[in-house]
């Protein structure tokens, strides 16, 4: 029964976090709600016995992506975020209708057609096996991923740096 209680609490945390993150006018508050969503999802991964993925979720999303989003907000928009006229309730209700339609028409029918096994079989902790698998069958994927991350790093720096204008260099600051 503990698992059931944990599932409902964690899913409530995740859904509420996501809703607040999407709806909050203040961007900084939105990012913190997003971090709550990531934490709830990490708990759900733990509940599904994917302990390494839960740890990665905390490290990568709550740690790196959260800080990155906060810095991007500080570098761009006023902290207060959108002003009132940009979030009319009419636009919001259309978005809600569209999302609900996608849920009911596209997502729900295939889910309900699947068989739903009641009890999952017990599994052993998988971190060690995951490491072995990363080294033996998946090593090429790992290397390509490293290449992708390097390319993303260089690309992000180049894009954020922008084109340096000559007059910018002449200006006193």
């Amino acid at each position, binding site marked *: 029964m503990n698992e059931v209680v944990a599932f409902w609490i964690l899913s409530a945390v995740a859904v509420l976090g996501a809703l607040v993150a*999407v709806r909050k006018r203040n*961007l900084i508050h939105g990012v913190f709600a997003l971090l709550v969503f990531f934490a709830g999802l990490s708990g*759900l991964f733990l509940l*599904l016995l*994917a302990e390494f993925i839960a740890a990665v979720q905390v490290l990568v999303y709550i740690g790196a992506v959260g800080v990155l989003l906060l810095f991007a907000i500080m570098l761009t928009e006023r902290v207060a975020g959108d002003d009132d006229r940009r979030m009319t309730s009419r636009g919001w209700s259309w978005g809600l209708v*569209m999302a609900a339609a996608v849920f009911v028409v596209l997502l729900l029918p295939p*889910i309900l057609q699947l068989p739903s096994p009641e009890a999952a079989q017990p599994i052993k902790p998988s971190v060690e096996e995951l490491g072995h698998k990363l080294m033996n069958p998946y090593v090429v994927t790992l290397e390509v991923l490293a290449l992708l*991350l390097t390319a993303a790093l260089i690309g992000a720096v180049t*894009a954020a740096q922008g084109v340096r204008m000559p007059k910018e260099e002449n200006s006193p600051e």
Partner: protein
Amino acid sequence: MTLHHYLILAAVLFCVGLMGAFTRRNAIVVLFSVEIMLNAANLNFIAFWRYSDNPALLHGPMFTLFAIAVAAAEVAVGLALVIAVYRHFKTVDLESMDTLREE
């Protein structure tokens, strides 16, 4: 807990992210709505893995691991692009970036 619980939760989270991407006009909020959708997909991978016949193969966690790494790279590049766009237009409002629409 059955598989359906997790799948429906992931679908709900996906739709919340979709709603954010539809309704918000701030580029950063749209970016993290996309992140919410990606995370919902990851939850699906892990749920299917947990309830599969042979979880020892670890296909689910492996795919999720790679998806998280690619998503992290995507966030970095996306935010760099947002900053570059902000420098050009002095705004991150997606509705005001309509240069191609002007005749």
